[in-house]
């Protein structure tokens, strides 16, 4: 034992005693068990089923049954046939993430540093929309943007929209819906990391003659990067796979990949639908890995 004896008068035989070996407790594993079983049942099993469905013989029907023929052609077909929808999903998801970041960062910044005693009220207001369902919120956008609604009338009056112009059933409406619906997923992680920043660091930057923009760029922004990365991921991933916003606010011209997957399942083309789902998952996974590597925020994972 090289550590100094904690108590005066200690020594002798006591020093020779070995510290007790770390207890090999099963508690840790037992605590893991419910979560592991849950994941096994509701994540691993469906994933295996999905991947194998994507390799079924595409000519199968319910009557003949589906044979697992390792039809990797399903993937080629999926990417071939639905490249437009993939691009569109990534584009809409990307735009929505960008807008959510532009809106969310100042908001989170204000809540963290400027809100004072209103902080928790403002946080509550960010979360409040979650008290109603996703569908209801999107449906209310449908009313707000209605062709005979106030917003459209005003925009027409200002000649921002043409006389027969509309907002509903256009690509901007879809991106707007996505931005709105996933904004809290951006604001909350941003707030969490901004709130952790020690204000004295920013003050120190000022003391060292950094202008406010410089202090923001060199101190605040880098320190809030984990929030930015988490926020963009939490926004982008569901936004790219969403189909409700297109369904309610868009037209067939805005169809995203989620809608295709849904309609293919409905039409009974299980292998094609599964191949599309897996491709979407892999695509997003690859983008996320790449992004995290570039952003270099290890603490996030």
């Amino acid at each position, binding site marked *: 034992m090289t550590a100094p004896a904690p108590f005066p008068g200690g020594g002798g035989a006591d020093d020779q005693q070995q510290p007790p070996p770390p207890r090999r407790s099963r508690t840790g594993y037992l605590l893991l068990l419910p979560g592991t079983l849950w994941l096994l049942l509701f994540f691993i*099993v469906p994933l295996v*089923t999905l991947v194998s469905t994507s390799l*079924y013989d595409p000519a199968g*029907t319910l009557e003949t049954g589906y044979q697992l023929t390792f039809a990797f052609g399903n993937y080629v077909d999926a990417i071939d046939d639905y490249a437009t929808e993939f691009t569109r999903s990534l584009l809409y998801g990307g735009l929505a993430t960008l807008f959510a970041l532009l809106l969310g960062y100042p908001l989170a910044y204000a809540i963290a540093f400027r809100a004072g005693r209103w902080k928790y009220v403002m946080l509550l207001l960010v979360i409040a929309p979650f008290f109603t369902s996703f569908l209801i919120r999107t449906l209310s956008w449908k009313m707000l943007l209605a062709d005979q609604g106030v917003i459209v009338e005003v925009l027409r009056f200002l000649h921002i929209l043409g006389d027969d112009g509309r907002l509903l059933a256009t690509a901007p409406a879809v991106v707007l819906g996505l931005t709105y619906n996933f904004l809290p997923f951006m604001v909350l992680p941003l707030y969490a990391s901004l709130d952790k920043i020690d204000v004295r660091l920013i003050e120190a930057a000022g003391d060292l003659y950094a202008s406010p923009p410089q202090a923001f760029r060199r101190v605040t922004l880098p320190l809030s990067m984990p929030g930015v990365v988490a926020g963009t991921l939490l926004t982008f991933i569901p936004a790219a796979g969403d189909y409700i916003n297109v369904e309610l606010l868009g037209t*067939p011209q805005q169809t995203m990949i989620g809608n*295709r997957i849904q309609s293919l399942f409905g*039409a*009974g*083309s299980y292998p094609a639908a599964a191949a599309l789902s897996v491709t979407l998952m892999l695509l997003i996974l690859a983008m996320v890995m790449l992004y995290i590597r570039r952003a270099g925020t290890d603490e996030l994972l």
Partner: protein
Amino acid sequence: MDARRSAGPMPSHIEAMVRASVSRRSVLRGASLSALSVAGAGLFAACGTPSATQSADTCSSEDLSATEKALNFSNWPAYIDQKRVQRGGEKVTILPTLQKFQDRTGITVTYTTDVNDNSEFFEKVRNQLGACEPVDRDLFVLTDWMAARMIDLGWLQQLDHANLPNVEQSLSASLRSPDWDPDRDYSVPWQSGLTGIAYNADLTGEVRSFEELLSRGDLKGQVTLLTEMRDTMLFMLLATGADPADFTDDEWGVALERLQQAVDDGQIRAFNGNNYLQDLVNGNVAACEAWSGDVIITQYSNPNIKFVVPEEGLALWSDNMLVPNKATHKTNAEQLMNFYYDPEMAATLAAWVNYICPVEGAREAMEEIDPSLVDNPLIFPDEEMLSKAYDFMALDETTARQYEDDFAQVTGG
């Protein structure tokens, strides 16, 4: 002699004990395995799935109607007569005809409105029915083509005509022998309806045909069509000069091309399911493809919504009551079918749902219930009108899926 006797059947009480212990053991085993069975079913699928086709031989059902006075009935929302009544200081909704059925027969009906869409409902029951397992419903209501698909897959129980005297007597002549169930062995129509055009008279003049819907400049971006492939493509086929009851792949291609063109032009704003009338009432859409009963109901509060039978022709469909395999109350279900073919009940139902009544004699009964509906051709169409109705060609599973795929490509919905 003794030896033979001992080798004979066990005394009945011992046999009962043995059977009981076996069944208890198997129940215990079943309980411990059931947790794994969910996972197992999922992993099984990893090696492909067997044919989902069943038949009376592979999947037999037991009828417990004699001892269990119960019936689980799944239907579409707002598809049965309702009434708000004061009961114990509270306003509750009751279903008058269904209540009468329960009073008359002593059968307790659990009525659920969980059919929102034919395909969606199909997905809900597909795994169980394909594996000959119960779906906890004794009776559900699906549209012709989906009923046909289930008959082809052998998922339905054959009905006993002896239990259906009212149906035998009063089923409308035009509905007695559809191609897909010529003797009505598996299906009994609940309601029929027309697919046509609805328009908002505040926003546009009369829309008389599908051709106008697809090409009129003033309707650009203000038209919605229905997501049900057969509904929409029937009119696309008619509009391109094909016969929906008998068409070739080429004609299908032409009709689909026409639809694609309308979508690309921005003429079609969206493809809608059950919620299609909202946009029309709110004025986001000037005209849409619509189902007759919905429009009649909407007209009570919005008289400016009009329904038109398109010049191209009449599309008549029925929603059918079906009894799935493994349903344990078939006779009870048949009693309900029979009950609703009593002209008085049929008229009460039709006066509320405003769809076409499949029951002969209901028109006379309607005189007393609501005389204003007696001459409504959308509830009681005349024979001449019905003779102009088109059916959609019966499709085999592979073709149906190909067409659904093609259609989904265009609609994206």
